[in-house]
């Protein structure tokens, strides 16, 4: 067998000929058997039996209409209603023009008239139909997202362009579920995928209702392109209803980024990215779950782009500056500096002071945060070395690590190398990790935290109480210090419940041999309450705002002198 034969054998498709007359069957087989494998059946019932056994083999059915036992019309009806075989392309063999409309209605795609026409005509019809079918299958396979059966991003954009050629303007909507990644961690992958499927079904229904299409980019990022609306609340309502019907207690909800009235003149792929970015900018505390794309958003995007572009230069030129927010030990008679949290500030040569709120979430999104965090870690080491030149006992400085940092290869080695490079010990620097990172990266993070704890580093859970706090977190997560989020102090005077919770939290953590830091302390009343309830440290404007290194040094040096 030569190579061509082998290929031919591999690619030779199978055709099922359903025809009761032997002569017709034989002639048709003779015409097609050079190019195809032929299976035959003498009536509709036999054809169903063959399909039952060879379903995956058959690329095309040639069907006679008038046959004993089960005629072609009955076969067509059964095939049309059978999910498994309905899509196999079919050519009707007929001598009656009048039968054609009925056959088309029943799912026939093409006809071969009897007596058979020129062989080449038959061959071409057969080949075309098989090719068309295979193309459709390929499109179907690659056009959906693999989970929800919505269009994937690429196909969504392709169809969006087609739709926009017929409709002057439509609304492009990006849909995202708030806190979905945390949710996945809590309910598991299977259930969260199940939720995505249900959301997708609802979006499909909305798309149908408003003459549009629905798609999914990845994870929980969805798209809708629908006829222009004046109000979009109903989309959130319908998705939230789906979520509620599945999990009544979950704190996730739908958020929308909307680009109203898009036209063909908009770059559809850019617009798709923008509506998703828009949706992602809606945070849990916001009043609205809908954000429109507008010029401000555009400016914001450009600004973010600028920050990303300037990042490397900023690191190289030491534009990032460390500020220290003292943590005061309040156990004694007078509060004394017991440590400090290192905070990063960006002094941009052209843009001036840039708020961490502007760049930290941005860098967390694109991964630059790890580079920044390690940079801060090293800068803190250098500061400690400098401080040591003028004083004996430098308080422990806490450095923030982001959840993505825990995916740095050999994180503990990298950190230990830094410590060694500056001749420091692990107890000089504590590591702060936010509660949400703890919750969202549970297993992986716990493993890494324990690794570093074994090397002598202490861990602080940052912002505890701001997100999905669970008492269980306190029990199950390795930590040395728990930092109560400033939300407790902000709501301190609302009612006595807050105070009670704070007191109990302190008790609980201390009974687990942990230390407690209260963040955001701004009044003497808060200070006194915390002191009375045995809180270890406080942080906040009441005693000190974040200060530059020289000011911090002055503060700790003066305390050391007072001590002596």
């Amino acid at each position, binding site marked *: 067998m030569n190579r061509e034969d082998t290929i031919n054998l591999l690619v030779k498709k199978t055709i099922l000929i359903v025809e*009761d*007359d*032997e*002569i*017709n069957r*034989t*002639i048709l087989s*003779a*015409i097609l058997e050079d190019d195809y494998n032929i299976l035959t059946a003498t009536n509709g019932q036999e054809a169903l039996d063959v399909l039952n056994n060879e379903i995956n083999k058959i690329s095309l059915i040639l069907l*006679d209409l*008038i046959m*004993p036992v089960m005629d072609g019309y009955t076969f067509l009806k059964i095939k049309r209603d059978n999910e498994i075989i309905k899509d196999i392309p079919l050519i009707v063999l007929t*001598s009656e023009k009048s039968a054609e409309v009925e056959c088309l209605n029943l799912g026939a795609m093409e006809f071969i008239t*009897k*007596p*058979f026409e*020129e*062989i080449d005509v038959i061959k071409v019809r057969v080949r075309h139909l098989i090719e068309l079918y295979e193309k459709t299958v390929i499109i179907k396979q690659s056009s959906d997202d693999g989970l929800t059966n919505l269009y994937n991003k690429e196909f969504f954009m392709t169809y969006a362009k087609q739709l926009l050629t017929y409709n002057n303007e439509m609304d492009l909507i990006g849909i995202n579920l708030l806190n979905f990644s945390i949710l996945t961690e809590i309910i598991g992958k299977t259930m969260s995928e199940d939720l995505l499927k249900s959301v997708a079904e609802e979006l499909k229904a909305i798309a149908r209702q408003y003459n549009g299409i629905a798609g999914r980019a990845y994870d929980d990022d969805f798209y809708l392109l629908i006829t222009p609306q004046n109000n979009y609340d109903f989309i959130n309502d319908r998705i939230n209803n789906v979520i509620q019907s599945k999990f009544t207690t979950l704190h996730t909800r739908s958020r929308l980024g909307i680009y109203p009235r898009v036209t063909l003149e908009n770059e559809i792929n850019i617009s798709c990215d923008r509506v998703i970015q828009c949706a992602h900018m809606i945070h849990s505390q916001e009043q609205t779950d809908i954000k429109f794309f507008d010029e401000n958003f555009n400016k914001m995007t450009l600004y973010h782009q600028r920050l990303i572009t300037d990042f490397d230069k900023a690191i190289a030129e030491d534009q990032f500056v460390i500020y220290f927010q003292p943590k005061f030990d309040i156990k004694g008679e007078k509060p004394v500096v017991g440590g400090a949290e290192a905070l990063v500030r960006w002094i941009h040569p052209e843009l001036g002071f840039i708020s961490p709120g502007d760049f930290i979430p941005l860098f967390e999104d694109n991964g630059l945060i790890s580079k920044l965090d390690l940079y801060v870690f090293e800068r803190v080491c250098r500061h400690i070395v400098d401080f040591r030149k003028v004083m004996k006992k430098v308080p422990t400085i806490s450095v923030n690590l982001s959840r993505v940092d825990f995916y740095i290869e050999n994180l503990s080695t990298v950190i230990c190398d830094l410590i060694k490079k500056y001749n420091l010990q692990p107890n000089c620097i504590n590591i702060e990790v936010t509660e949400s990172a703890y919750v969202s990266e549970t297993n992986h993070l716990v493993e890494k935290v324990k690794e570093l704890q074994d090397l002598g580093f202490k861990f602080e859970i940052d912002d505890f109480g701001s997100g999905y706090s669970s008492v269980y977190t306190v029990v199950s997560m390795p930590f040395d210090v728990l930092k109560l989020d400033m939300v407790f102090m902000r709501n301190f005077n609302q009612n006595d419940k807050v105070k009670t919770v704070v007191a109990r939290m302190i008790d609980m953590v201390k009974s687990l041999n942990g230390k407690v830091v209260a963040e955001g302390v701004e009044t003497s009343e808060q200070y006194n309450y915390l002191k009375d309830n045995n809180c270890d440290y406080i942080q906040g404007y009441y005693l000190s705002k974040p200060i530059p290194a020289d000011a911090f040094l002055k503060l700790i040096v003066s305390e050391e002198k007072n001590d002596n």
Partner: protein
Amino acid sequence: MTIKEFYAVINGNYEDALKRMMYDMLISKMLKKFSEGSYLTMINEGIQEKDIKKVFTGAHTLKGVAGNLSFTILFDLASELCEKTRGKDEYNNEIETDFVALKEEYNKTIQLINEIQ
């Protein structure tokens, strides 16, 4: 008698048949199958039982085969019987005249096929 001569005698269309079946060998094989088949049986039974639907089905099958074998006259006769019985519920004696003509042509064709060398 050759295949070509056979077609000339029955006023069939040899070129057409050859286009469809590609080789004399396949034509010859199909002709033999035709001669061994019993394409009149169903029509005959239909007429005996006065079942017009059965007549239609039989005529329809014969029409298809005659067409594919390019038996022009037999094809026309079968087509006529087909049209006269298509979609009908009630038996009609008139078709028996058509059947006689059809039967005559059919038998003649079979006989001539057997004379092909």
